């Protein structure tokens, strides 16, 4: 076959034909950079949309009593905020990074399956439409929490069906996207780039892709059982028929716990890229970083029931899941140690991406520690469904995943647009975000420990001050993201010309191509030493 490819080399036609312009450039795209850009913009739009819902939640919680929304609406806000942030904002943002950076980092001309790549993106649109449209159907959007536990989700209205099918479609998108990433990484690396020479970001995405193809089909199974219980008379989650509502929780969290690592491992990859650049030192403990990532991924499949300590489980099971959960802090600790050791005696500068990265190391560690607190069985029985849990997962998901995404955007924006972003405004965005984030979520540790339950629109008087502080912080946090939007648009429209290397300490194949990265890169694979 290799003989024939030589003769047909010129048939690789789309170069000579050029590519469509205007809307069709995006709709018909088979270019990893364009698809990455679409993913990132989609994610940002969903981030603002779900963020606006969070503003609604915090407005209601500004004072005790019912002010703005009815309890049903409040429950819809918390549920959709969670679903859209997870599946619409965080996950697509990381896939956007993967699209842009993985082929550039491994010296490939594109993803392995460019058309399927575009399909993964375009499947997000119907899913988003279904989720958002579900607000307007009779009965309103899903209101039982993003985990959609039965029996509430079995009893809910039409919006449950819409959300379930939205998640099915998102699952197809994630599985196809992950297969694409795995194939790209294993089969499209430039000659000489062995697995242990791959940039850390590529490693974290490889492992994340495995988590996705193992976890998403299980979610699809759980959701399918939900649909048949709702409409076809099965008794999976009904004790009268021999089923069990807790069965859903087991199947859901078998997906759900790997899911939280799906949302943080690529963030670790971004940190492991940014910190060495601005510390001007190679990443400390590269091999241990790879093994730690793999260890986290493996462990993520044997800890799921720590989300269910209060739903009834034999003590042996509770103890197993407590200890296995605590084990995860070992590889995570390896990572934090390596980042600190990378910075140690480095020649550090503090541009916006580095500020975000340092903040993530610090704040994610707080979130990790509060996670460890939640893992302690007797303590968790107190903390289950309180604001302590809300504080915990926002410290890992906002100041972990979302802020790593922001740092990554600032870091690669010059490569994507060809312009430097406005450093001064970037720093403003960083400080506003970090301070407002902590003002919002730090008090929730206290309200949670004092017993304030989550997902309730009203609360007793003694929580009033802390909630008012949280709400003020949340409004500031929301508003500062508009500054982010402004900085990004300003950078796209112009600014100081970026060099190819962009950052003095940046290393890797992506910094050898022009800024902005040309439409096609590495059509002839580079030789990696």
């Amino acid at each position: 076959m290799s003989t024939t490819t030589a003769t047909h080399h010129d048939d690789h036609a789309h170069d000579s034909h050029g590519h469509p312009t205007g809307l069709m450039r995006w709709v018909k795209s088979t270019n990893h950079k364009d698809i990455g850009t679409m993913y990132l913009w989609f994610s940002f739009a969903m981030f603002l949309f779900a963020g606006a819902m969070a503003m609604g939640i915090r407005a209601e919680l500004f004072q005790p009593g019912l002010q703005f929304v009815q309890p049903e609406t409040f429950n819809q806000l918390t549920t959709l905020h969670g679903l859209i942030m997870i599946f619409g904002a965080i996950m697509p943002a990381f896939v956007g990074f993967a699209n842009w950076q993985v082929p550039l980092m491994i010296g490939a001309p594109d993803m392995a399956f460019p058309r399927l790549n575009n399909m993964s993106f375009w499947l997000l649109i119907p899913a988003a439409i279904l989720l958002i449209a579900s607000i307007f159907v009779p009965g309103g959007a899903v209101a039982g929490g993003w985990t959609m536990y039965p029996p509430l989700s079995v009893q809910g209205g039409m919006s449950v069906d819409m959300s379930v099918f939205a998640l099915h479609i998102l699952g197809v998108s994630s599985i196809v996207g992950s297969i694409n990433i795995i194939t790209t990484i294993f089969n499209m690396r430039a000659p000489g780039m062995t697995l242990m020479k791959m940039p850390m970001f590529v490693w974290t995405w490889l492992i994340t892709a495995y988590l996705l193809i193992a976890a998403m089909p299980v979610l699809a199974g759980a959701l399918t059982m939900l649909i048949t219980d709702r409409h076809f008379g099965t008794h999976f989650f009904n004790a009268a028929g021999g089923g069990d509502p807790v069965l859903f929780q087991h199947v859901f969290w078998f997906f759900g716990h790997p899911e939280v690592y799906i949302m943080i491992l690529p963030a670790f990859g971004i940190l492991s890229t940014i910190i060495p650049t601005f510390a001007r030192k190679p990443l400390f403990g590269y091999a241990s970083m790879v093994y730690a990532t793999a260890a986290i991924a493996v462990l993520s499949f044997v800890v799921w029931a720590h989300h269910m300590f209060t739903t009834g489980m034999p003590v042996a099971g509770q103890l197993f899941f407590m200890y296995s959960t605590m084990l995860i802090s070992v590889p995570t600790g390896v990572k934090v140690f390596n980042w600190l050791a990378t910075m140690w005696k480095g020649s550090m500068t503090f541009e916006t991406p580095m500020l975000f990265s340092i903040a993530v190391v610090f704040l994610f560690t707080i979130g990790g520690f509060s996670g460890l607190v939640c893992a302690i069985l007797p303590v968790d029985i107190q903390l289950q469904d309180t604001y302590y849990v809300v504080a915990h997962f926002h410290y890992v998901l906002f100041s972990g995943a979302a802020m790593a995404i922001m740092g990554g955007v600032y870091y690669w924006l010059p490569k994507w647009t060809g312009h430097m972003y406005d450093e001064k405004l970037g720093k403003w965005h960083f400080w506003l975000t970090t301070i407002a984030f902590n003002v919002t979520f730090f008090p929730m540790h206290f309200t949670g420990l004092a017993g304030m339950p989550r997902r309730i629109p009203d609360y007793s008087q003694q929580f009033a001050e802390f909630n008012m502080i949280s709400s003020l912080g949340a409004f500031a946090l929301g508003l500062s993201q508009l500054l982010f939007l402004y900085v990004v648009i300003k950078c796209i429209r112009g600014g100081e010309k970026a060099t190819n290397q962009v950052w003095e300490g940046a290393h890797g194949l992506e910094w050898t191509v022009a800024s902005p990265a040309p439409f096609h890169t590495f059509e002839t694979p580079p030789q990696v030493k």
Partner: protein
Amino acid sequence: MSQNTKNYYLPGPSFWPLIASISLFLLAGGFTMVLNKIAMGTPLMIAGGLALAYLLFGWFKEVIGESVGKLYNQQVDKSFRWGMGWFIFSEVMFFFGFFGALFYTRSVSLPWLADAQLLWPGFAATWPSAGPGLTEAFTPMGPWGLPAINTLLLLTSGATLTWAHWGLMKDNRKQLTIGLILTIALGVLFLYLQMHEYAEAGFTIKTGIYGATFYMLTGFHGLHVTMGAIMLSIILFRVLKGHFNAHDHFGFEAVAWYWHFVDVVWLFLFIFVYWL
């Protein structure tokens, strides 16, 4: 590798992804409406199904055209192998979820229900069980009638498919064609007997957790056999058109992998759903 890396195949702009998106949107939206008894649902689902059929036909036609047009090389071939392999893995995980539900029910939730005597006094955890709240009697499905015959059929079809593959490797087109026809025939016979089994079954999907797990697992397996049989038929059609040769036939192999995967799932079904 170095010889081929110059020749990555990068497809040009394509409309198929958008059509995939539209067809799934119509199917999901239409199905939601059907489930909630909104009249518009059925036409939307039909439109979605037609769009999906058009998509699968058109996209695969394009890919087959590229393959036959020798646009692919070893590199692309390898990508397809990785892709198909991990796709099958994701399917394994899909079935794993349902098997997990079956094991959990049998070894955890039913014994617990029996222990909690306050709820349903006198309920004993036996298998098969339709749970404590449903009282109508039902006849469970035993393993040694149709299911055993079906096991033999599927195992034989795996053998005939391998025999067809040997034919392809030896450039014996007749053996290849006969092997494929036999495999498809066995698959269709399996599906026919499976439908017969459903029609004769002494219980329905509503018969508690036993009916739910039975029909969900065997139903999704049957769906996969159907898809596998359709894929095999397309391969047969391509063989008759003269596609594939002894060195270059990943399309055939991919479908064969899929067929063997469906076979293995059946063995687990036979053991855990019908037998034990």
